[in-house]
């Protein structure tokens, strides 16, 4: 159809790499890439050269040597006889623990504060503004130190619980003791134990725990199947069958059966010598770090949530009110699901921040990855470079895992155009 001739490509000449706009972009990229690689090569070569000049080598053998130090809080069995590698894993698990706990509570705090900041109630909205501005504008390290100092200075020492007329009393039916070192909480103990499963690396899981988890998962699956059946039935007949008694039975009966089979008793912490024993002592280092991280990141999340909510067109909530939905239901059913699309991407960054910020743990003496591998191990073995490289690699992998998991979630809630 076209009458005009398409101009033929001029033959390629080397000068076109610089003069021709079509090729110039590639030229610049290739040159920059070579320069960056050269700089990296020089940096690494220089480091190796300097290390060998100092008579140091680069190897990771130290990871298999005896660590020799104790760690207050361990999630897998660990003693001073364990290797530096195991100490690093213990630290990593501690990092993960505080990161997971922190992300959950920070999200809860952030969503609540973000929504309440938009509240029509003047006092509530102002209080939330104060919270957000206070935590956003003061460095995290200070908050960690403040929270930890409050725990240390204001709570009684375990000794205060001793004697016939103790200075401090346990709370909640004499089951929980708050001290300036830890919170002693009761644990559950099996009356008839049936051994435990060894999953390697000295980690064992009690069969009873496994049984409880399996039963719980099965009950949830059955509950879902029941819901599906009820919906199909409703579609067919228009009447939704009553399912809640069956659901309740699904959850209650097997758990009661397990309880009867294994038998459970509550072990209360009691003061033995210097410290509480019997229950579990949750260290203040963990609680303070967790609290400070949650409140700090929560303030940022609150702003993200506020932005997300404001991004949803006003017509959406007006339409929802017109349908007769309450404010609360409008927020949870109409506005927040749409706001999620705006909220999730920046939320990923906040989760990453929280995880990385947990490396400030040493301020409270919480033994995370930075304090074990990057602290005591580094110091005792003198392997600064190796420890740092390893630690950076671990944090990098951790961050990548978190962001890819969150990106998957983001892909699910993203606006689908049909």
């Amino acid at each position, binding site marked *: 159809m076209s009458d005009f001739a398409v101009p033929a490509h001029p033959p390629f000449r080397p000068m076109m790499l610089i003069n021709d706009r079509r090729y110039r972009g590639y030229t610049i990229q290739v040159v920059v890439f070579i320069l960056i690689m050269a700089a990296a090569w020089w940096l690494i070569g*220089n480091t190796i*050269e300097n290390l060998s000049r100092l008579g140091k080598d680069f190897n990771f053998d130290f990871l298999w040597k005896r660590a020799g130090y*104790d760690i207050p809080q361990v999630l897998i069995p660990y003693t*001073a006889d364990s290797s530096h590698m195991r100490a690093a894993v213990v630290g990593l698990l501690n990092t993960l623990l505080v990161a997971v706990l922190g992300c959950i509570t920070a999200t809860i705090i952030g969503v609540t504060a973000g929504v309440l900041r938009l509240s029509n109630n003047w006092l509530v909205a102002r209080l939330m503004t104060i919270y957000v501005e206070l935590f956003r504008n003061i460095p995290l390290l200070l908050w960690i130190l403040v929270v930890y100092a409050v725990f240390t200075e204001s709570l009684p020492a375990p000794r205060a619980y001793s004697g016939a007329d103790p200075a401090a009393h346990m709370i909640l039916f004499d089951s929980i003791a708050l001290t300036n*070192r830890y919170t002693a909480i009761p644990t559950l103990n099996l009356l008839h134990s049936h051994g435990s499963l060894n999953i390697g690396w000295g980690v064992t899981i009690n069969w009873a725990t496994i049984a409880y988890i399996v039963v719980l998962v099965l009950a949830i699956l059955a509950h879902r199947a029941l819901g599906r059946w009820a919906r199909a039935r409703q579609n067919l007949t228009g009447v939704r069958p009553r399912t809640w008694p069956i659901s309740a039975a699904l959850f209650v009966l097997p758990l009661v059966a397990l309880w009867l089979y294994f038998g459970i008793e509550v072990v209360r912490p009691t003061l033995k010598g*210097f*410290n509480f024993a019997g229950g579990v*002592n949750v260290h203040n280092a963990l609680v303070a770090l967790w609290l400070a991280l949650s409140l700090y990141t929560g303030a940022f999340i609150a702003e993200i949530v506020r932005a997300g909510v404001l991004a949803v067109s006003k017509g959406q909530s007006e339409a929802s009110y017109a349908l007769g939905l309450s404010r609360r239901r409008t927020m949870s059913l109409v506005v927040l699901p749409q706001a999620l699309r705006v909220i999730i991407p920046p939320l990923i960054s906040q989760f990453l921040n929280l995880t990385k910020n947990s490396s400030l743990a040493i301020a409270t003496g919480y033994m995370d990855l930075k*304090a074990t591998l990057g602290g005591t191990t580094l110091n005792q073995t*003198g392997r600064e470079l190796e420890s740092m490289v390893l630690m950076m690699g671990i944090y990098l992998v951790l961050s990548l895992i978190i962001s890819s998991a969150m990106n998957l979630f983001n892909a699910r809630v993203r606006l689908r155009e049909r």
Partner: protein
Amino acid sequence: MKLAILFGTATAAALLAGGAMADTLADVKARGMLNCGVNTGLVGFAAPDANGNWQGFDIAVCKAVAAAVLGDASKVKYVPTTGQTRFTALSSGEVDVLARNSTVTFSRDTDLKLDFVAINYYDGQGFMVPKSLGVTSAKELDGATVCIQTGTTTELNLADYFRANNMKYQPVNIDSNAEGEQQYLAGACDAYTTDASGLAATRAAFANPDDHIILPEIISKEPLAVAVRHGDNNWGDIVRWTFFALVAAEEYGITSANLDEQANTSQNPEVQRLLGKTDDLGKMIGLDAEWAKRAIAASGNYGEIFNATIGEATPIKLARGLNAQWTQGGLMYAPPFR
């Protein structure tokens, strides 16, 4: 072409940096300043006073070396280092000498490529507890919570001691002495453990020092030494013999008060050699004849330094003990100056 220039410059820079590191003496002289790694603050050993001037037992070593090498005891830049950063600061060249309550150990000497040139304080790890606890021996600490500075040899000794005695404990890991002090006073730990000298120094800073006792058990050997980088042997010699000069001065009765008189009138050949009247020992280590004289003049001899900073007359109240002269039943022993 440009790449070649880049690499050429880089290699030259690397070679220059490497060459400069090997001769610390020339480096310090060219700089006109000694970089001395010290504690971030341990009263008696190394801490800034009310006027911001660093004072203490370890500081005296820095001053003596600066006086010997540069001729001026005030030409020192004090670089505060924590238990975590001290050895990196030394091996990276940030400091020329490390005078910071560091225990000599095999792996630090060999694997970390440090040279511990002179032990300036023979110490051992102890425990401090509040008197109200009613504990009189470390053997009664089963189940106790213990504050411990992380990354120190004391952390390892603590683990070993409790295991050897079949006792349990809860560590509270802290980063610095100041933090340990605060946690201990708040009752977040039952006992505080570090070198006995450090405990004494910490206790001296308390409002009520008498409410706390240092338990009699000393659970380790902690020879605290001055360290330099491995490989620059002449610099190591300078620091080592500067310290020995202080020890020898005490042995021969040379004090900051009678220094000049001794230098002019002493008939003791050892004193004459030490103070540079005969033999010119300084030349053998690249210094002038009066290097030792200046080192002694900086803060006095070893005994004077001890008494002025951590001795019984100071709030720290440390007895000479193992750190007395060998002639007084201690371990302080300077090899002959000849």
